[in-house]
């Protein structure tokens, strides 16, 4: 039954749809005024953020559409992350897409991904989840391939498309099998099937489902599309896609596992532990060898997926609540530092050498990048430290030897990641400038984004208390 309350519950999604249409239409008529279109898209992202924040502040929650769509603190929190990331992606895109004349289309794609992602985190029905994932993913193929002037972009987009389609079919097959066993796609019904001993078909469904998700969050060994896609993609796309849809996918995976199959916990925590260890090592070892900063950050995003998966492995016993908090905190911490790091590339360049001597030519930018790099390593007091600390706290409370191994691997990997992140810092602060000091004109919005994100990364410790309070009332765990 659709009531007035339903419209309130759907407010962020409705706002996103409204702005999506608006941006597309205004783009048709004012093709040349990129500032207007980008401003409108940024306003749209802010409006989505504002409406989600409003619902959160009002303490709104409830189930809609027969339980298939849920609004709770957990979902609203991830809507905030998605909308916030989109805001910075739009600011970054405004400058880049200036050359192509296709700015409105590109910005529409960003808003479509936002729509898919914010729907995704509220879904409680497996088919709804699949649709929302596709709604977020299909525009992202186009975003990756959007930079027509570079061959890598087309190549990355194609690889992403092919692997993404395979992943989607695997995911869908898993969902269908689970649906076949359960007779319902609602997570509350699914949990009935996944109690007691699992039937082989249910187990197969679970494995396929998890594999599909592993593709989507670029967990090893399903990560190989990531470096090509992010290296080829326009910077704003790489920054946005490596954060927002990924955070939403992690969020819905958390919901599926905790609400849909809590009884099968021993099975999926073991799978997660295995994926986490593999993903961390693969991401970091590959990142160590990269000279291209964009590709390095792409592998780094694989490694960070591994860190978040470590929190999933810790979702057991009395550590569950803490592990949910860890996923929430890590997602926000990663969003601010990683978007920031990607955006700096647009201002400086993607070759490691182009960072040389940045401290002497553009000290504020160098300091910001320094903050992002130190934060990605996990040095306090920056955001990345808090994310890792929470994962370690929850892992230590889990009381499982396997999780201790995962946590140990996380610490080892943090040390392992020092050389490549600090390579950038060394280039910026210790080397002599190789490029001329003249700063390219423009990029005001981009610089503004970088500074704001650096500030958020540095002051993240102020956000810890509200986030963990929110996780306590999230209803999950």
């Amino acid at each position, binding site marked *: 039954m659709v009531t007035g309350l339903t419209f309130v519950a759907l407010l962020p999604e409705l706002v996103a749809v409204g702005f999506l249409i608006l941006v597309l239409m205004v783009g048709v008529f004012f093709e040349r005024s990129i500032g207007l279109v980008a401003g409108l898209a940024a306003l749209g992202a802010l409006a989505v953020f504002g409406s989600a924040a409003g619902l959160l502040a009002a303490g709104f929650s409830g189930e809609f559409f027969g339980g298939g769509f849920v609004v709770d603190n957990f979902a609203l929190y991830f809507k905030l992350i998605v909308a916030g990331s989109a805001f910075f992606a739009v600011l970054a895109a405004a400058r880049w897409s200036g050359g192509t004349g296709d700015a409105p289309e590109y910005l529409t794609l960003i808003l479509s991904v936002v729509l898919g992602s914010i729907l995704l985190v509220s879904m409680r029905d497996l088919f709804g989840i699949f649709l929302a994932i596709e709604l977020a993913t299909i525009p992202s193929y186009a975003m990756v391939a959007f930079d027509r002037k570079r061959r890598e972009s087309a190549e990355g987009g194609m690889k992403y498309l092919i692997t993404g389609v395979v992943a989607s079919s695997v995911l869908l097959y898993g969902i269908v099998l689970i649906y076949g066993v359960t007779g319902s796609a609602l997570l509350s019904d699914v949990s009935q099937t996944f109690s007691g001993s699992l039937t082989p078909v249910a187990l197969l469904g679970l494995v396929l489902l998890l594999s599909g998700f592993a593709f989507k969050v670029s967990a090893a060994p399903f990560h190989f599309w990531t470096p090509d896609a992010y290296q080829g993609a326009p910077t704003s796309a790489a920054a946005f896609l490596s954060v927002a849809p990924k955070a939403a996918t992690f969020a819905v995976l958390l919901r599926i596992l905790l609400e849909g199959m809590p009884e099968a916990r021993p099975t999926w925590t073991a799978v997660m532990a295995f994926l986490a260890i593999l993903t961390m090592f693969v991401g970091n070892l590959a990142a160590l060898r990269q000279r291209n900063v964009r590709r390095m950050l792409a592998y780094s995003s694989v490694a960070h997926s591994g860190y978040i998966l470590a929190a999933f492995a810790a979702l057991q016993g009395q550590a569950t609540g803490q592990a949910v908090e860890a996923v929430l905190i890590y997602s926000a911490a990663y969003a601010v530092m990683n978007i920031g790091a990607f955006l700096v590339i647009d201002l400086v360049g993607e070759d490691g050498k182009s960072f040389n001597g940045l401290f002497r030519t553009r000290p504020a930018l160098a300091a910001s990048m320094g903050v992002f790099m130190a934060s990605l390593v996990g*040095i*306090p007091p920056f955001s990345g430290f808090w994310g890792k600390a929470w994962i*370690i706290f929850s892992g*230590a409370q889990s009381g499982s030897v396997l999780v201790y191994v995962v946590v140990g691997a996380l610490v080892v990997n943090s*040390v392992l990641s*020092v050389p490549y992140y*600090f390579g950038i810092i*060394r280039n910026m*602060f*210790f080397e002599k400038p190789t490029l001329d000091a003249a700063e390219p004109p423009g990029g005001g919005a981009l610089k503004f984004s970088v500074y704001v994100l650096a500030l958020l990364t540095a002051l993240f410790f102020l956000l810890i208390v509200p986030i963990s309070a929110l996780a306590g009332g999230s209803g999950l765990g």
Partner: protein
Amino acid sequence: MITTITIFFPLLGAILLLLLPEEERPLRYAALAVAAVPLLLTLYIYFAYGSGLEVPSLTQDFTWIGSLDIGYRVGLDGLGFGMFFLTALLTLIAVVASYDVRENLKQYFAILFIAEVGMLGVFASEDLILFYIFFEITLIPMYLLVGIWGDENRRQAAIKFFVYTFLGSTVMLAGFLAFGILAGTYAMESLTSGGGLGRTAQIAVAAPILFGLLIKVPAVPLHGWLLDVYVSSPISTNVVLSGILPKLGTYGLIKVAIPLLPQGVQPFLPYLAAFGVINIVYGAFVAFLQPDLKALVAYSSIGTLGFILLGAASGNAVGLNGAVLQQVTHGLYSALLFVLVGVIATRTGTRKVRELGGLAARMPWAGGLLVLGAMAAMGLPGLAVFVSEFMSIMGGYDAFPVQGVLAALGIVLSAMYLLYMLARVVFGPVERPAYEAVEDAGPMEMAAAVPLAVLLVLFGIFPALLVSVQRPGVEAVISAIGGG
């Protein structure tokens, strides 16, 4: 509140400095003003509350993360106050002595002040996680200070420093996390005497913590990062690097490891004392072999850190008082020596001991102060280091006779190389005609060196000025050990 203000004032100062225009003189004055504020605040704390620091005072405590009992908890007790004061003092001295830094002056001061926030914070932390965070906040600023403003070898030095100390602090964090999870809190107050942990658990937790702290000191043989870093740094960075940074490690021993994990540390104590002796003897021998004056002072500096380890390991009141005092006196004398090395190197153009000679005639002030600093370093009675080294050895001898005797021999060794150095550099014939024309230390250089020399004499004659403040803190440690 005053503690928090003192800790974070330099951060505010750093931000203000970055907003100033790029003009040298106003920048230097502004930096002096910023550095003076924490020092004045600590002096105020000394005179207003100095006699009552039995338990952490001037505290601020609010729980940050309730479920894990992590909090922003700061306070000053007798153990930390001396170093808190010294940090504020040496930062000011470093600003005065920054005449050798010419490029990117603004950023230099800003980074120095951010490091000061971390250092002040460590000496006032009453929570393990907060301690770790402040400990780590010093890491990147020091890395940048060495790496940007050091000499030709700076990159390698900075990276070595980073890798060693990051590894050490990560291992230390692992120990802290395990400790807090087992005990259910990170408040140092509730963790005293083990926080309810059994002996085996305490040992398991203490081992990584000790390892991390000893790298920071550094205790020989974990000192691989030290020489390059000390030699490559600009002089004003040396002041902080040798005066404060090692104390993050030794203070961690005295404030965290020993009172919080008495049973866990206990089996390691003889080795800790032995590490102290190794530092003393090794430092003295290697210093003797150094052709470079700065390297000589660097090894002298890690040598005398050994007395802190010895005194801390003793576990008795005399030794611990000696160790806590030595943290301060060591900072004063090594900062003084580094400042003077800078003066001599800029005047003569060399740091080679063999090429120097007869500076007393041309540089009476600098030469005289160098003699005073070296006398302090060898523990001559009447100067502050004598008191603290003597107490450390007495306490150390009580607990570990062999180590105590060997440490006393170390004093003789240090006298040997220091007297040799003085004979070459200050006295003796004028080595080169060019040295006839060198000028004595200028006003800024004197302003950096004289306060240190005065304090060395003052605390040498009236050690009670410091000991009376720190004694209650030491008694708290003793009772924690006894209660464990």
